[in-house]
C-alpha cells in the first residue's frame, strides 16, 4: 500500500540524530553530562541515529530506483 515505510523512518531518525548532534555540540562542556557519567552521549548516540536514518533513506531510494512505481511512491517526500 502506497509507500515505503523506510522513508519516514529514515527522515525521522535523520532529523532526530541531527538535532541531538547539534544540541550536543552546543552544550559541549555543560554540567548536564554529569548525568551520563561525563560522556557527551548526545553527540555519540546522535551520530549513530543520524547514520541509521541516512541508511534507511538510502535503502528506500535505491529500491525505488530499481523498480519505479510512478503513481504512489514518487509523490512521497
Amino acid at each position, binding site marked *: *500500500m502506497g509507500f515505503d515505510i523506510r522513508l519516514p*523512518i529514515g527522515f*525521522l531518525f535523520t532529523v*532526530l540524530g541531527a538535532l541531538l548532534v547539534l544540541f550536543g555540540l552546543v552544550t559541549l562542556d*555543560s554540567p548536564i553530562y554529569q*548525568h551520563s557519567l561525563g560522556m557527551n552521549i548526545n553527540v555519540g548516540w*546522535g551520530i549513530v541515529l543520524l547514520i541509521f536514518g541516512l541508511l534507511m533513506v538510502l535503502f528506500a531510494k535505491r529500491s525505488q530506483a530499481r523498480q519505479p512505481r510512478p503513481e504512489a511512491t514518487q509523490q512521497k517526500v
Partner: protein
Amino acid sequence: MNTANQLQWVDYIVMIIYFGFVLGIGFFLKRFMRTSSEFLSAARSMPAWVAGLAFLSANLGAQEVIGMAASGAKYGIATSHFYWLGAIPAMVFVGIFMMPFYYGSRARSVPDYLSLRFDEKTRGLNAITFACMTIMSSGISMYAMALLIETLHIFDTPFRLLHLPESWVFHVSIVLSAVIVLGYIFLGGLTSAIYNEVLQFFLIVAGFAPLVFLGLRDVGGWSGLKTNLPPAFVHAWAGMGSPHNNPLGVEWFSLVMGLGFVLSFGYWCTDFLVVQRAMAADSMSAARRTPLIAAVPKMLFPFLVILPGLIALAITRPISNPSATIGDLASRSAQYGGGFMGRVPLTAGGAGSAPTTEKYASTSVPLIPVQTSPTGEVVIDKNGNMQLDYNMIIPQMLLRYFPNGMLGIGLTALLASFMSGMAGNVTAFNTVWTYDIYQSYIRKGQSDQHYLRMGQFTTVFGVLLSIGTAYFAASFNNIMDILQLVFAFVNAPLFATFLLGMFWKRATGHGAFFGLLSGIMAAAIHQGLTLPADSSPGIKGGWITVVTVYPSEMAQNFWTAIWAWTTCFVVTIIISLATKPRLERELRGLVYALTEKQHERSGPWYTRPVPLGIIVLALTLVLNLIFF
C-alpha cells in the same frame, strides 16, 4: 549532580517531531483507505519485516517495558523466562504450524477463524470477551500514561508558560493521547497503526540501548552486577528445582507447563492483537515469517527491558548486605503482572525493605522509590514494610542517566509505547467489532462502504470507551483487578480450543464452546480454592475456601492456567466425540489433515519458515544455557 533531571526545550522538540511524524503518516495514508479491508486489514499488503516488527511492537506497550523492568528488579534474570521459555517457542509454533490456517482460510480475524472452523457461538464468546479486553487494556494504558506524565512533571513547564493549572495535567494528557491515537487510526486504519508500531520499535531501541549502556557502566558491567546481586538473581534455571530456591517461587514443571506452554502459547498463538499483524502480511510466506522475524529482536529484548531492573536493584542495594534470603524473596507477595500479556495491573506489589541510598546519598529520588497512595501516603504492607514502586524504575533511570536531548528521546520512546499500546488494542477492537460483532450479529449484508464507515466510527467509539475506562481505572482500582482476573480466566483455556481445532478434524463446535466454558470455570474454581502464601482470601484467591497454599502468586497463576487448559482439552474431546462431526469438505483449509502442506521451495533457505524457526530456537537455547 545526580539529582533528577528537568526537561528543556530540546526535549519538547524531540517529542513534537516524533508525534508530528506519527500524525503525518496517518494523513499520508488517508487517501488509500477506500474499502473496509484497507482500513481494517491493511488490505493484506505488508512486507514480512514490517509485519514482523509490528507483531513484536504491538505487544511492546509501555506496560511491557515498565513491567519487565519491575519484574527484573523483583525476580532477577528469571524474568527472561517470559521471553526465552514463553514467547519465542510460541512464536515459532504460530509461524510454522498455525499461520497456514489463519492466513490460508482467509479469515479476517481470530474469532472469524473460530466461526469458520466451529460455529457462531464459539466465535461470539471469543469476539465479545476479546472486544471487552482490548478496550480495557487501551484504557489502562491511557490511565497509566497520564499518571506517569503527572508524576514525572513532564508537562509542568509548558503548563506554567500557558498559565494552566497543574491539576489539569492528568486530564489534558488523557485527551491529548486520545486525540493522537484517534487521529492516526481514523485516518490510516490498521496500516497506520502498523507503520507507527515499526517506527516505535526503532524509537524504543534508540531510547533504551544507551540507557542500558550507561547503567551497566555505572554498576561496573556484568561482573559488577553479579557481585551486587544475590546469586539467584543472575541465574534463570539454577534454582528451579524447588520453589523456595528461586525468586519466582515456582518449580520447573509449573514454569514449563504453565508459562512456557499454556499461557505463552495461549497469548502468542490466539490473541488477535498480535495475530492481526501477521494476517496483514502480503503473502502466505510473509505471514508465516512474521512471527519468526519478530522472534529475533524479541530474543534480545530482555537485555533492553529486564536489565534496567537488575541495574536499578544493584545500584540501590547496599553492598554491605547483598542478599535478602531466598526464602524471604519467595514468600514476598509475588504479584506478577503478566507483563508479557501487555495487560498488566498497575500495582506492582512486592514488599521489601526500603532502599538505602548509600552509594547515591545525594540522589533526591531513589531508582526504586517507595510507593505512595494517591493521597501521598507511603504504602505499607501487612508486615509493616514499605512497598516499593517498581514501576518507576524505567522512568527514574531515564531521568537519572540521560542529559537533556537524550532525555527527550527516552521519554518520547516511553510515551510512544503507551500510545502504540492503545492503538494496537483499538485497531484490534475495530476489526473484531466491525466484522465479528456488527456484521455478524447486528447488520448483515450491507455494502462495503457501510462497513468502512462503521470501522471509522468504531475508532471514535473505541477511543471514547478507552477514556471512560481510564477514568474508571482511576477511581475503582479494585474493580479493574477483578476484571483482569476474569479475563485471565477467559484466556487460559483458549489454546486448547485452537490446538484441537487446527489439528484434530473430529473436534466439533459444541465441543469447542462447552470446552471453553468449562475451562473458564475450572480457572475460576481453582483460583477460588487456592491462595498464594502471605495473602488473605479475596481477590488473590481462596474466595470459596482455601484448599492449597502456593509459595507465590506466580505459582498460583501458572497452576490456574494448567488446570484451565487441561479441563478445556479433555471436555472438548469428550463432547466432540459425543456430537456430530462436520463434513470433511467443509473443513478444507481449516484443519491440518485436510489442508495441503505448504511447500516453500522457492527463494533462498533463510527466507523459509522452517529453517528460520530452527535457527531461532537454537539461538534461544544458547541464551538459556548462558544464563542458566
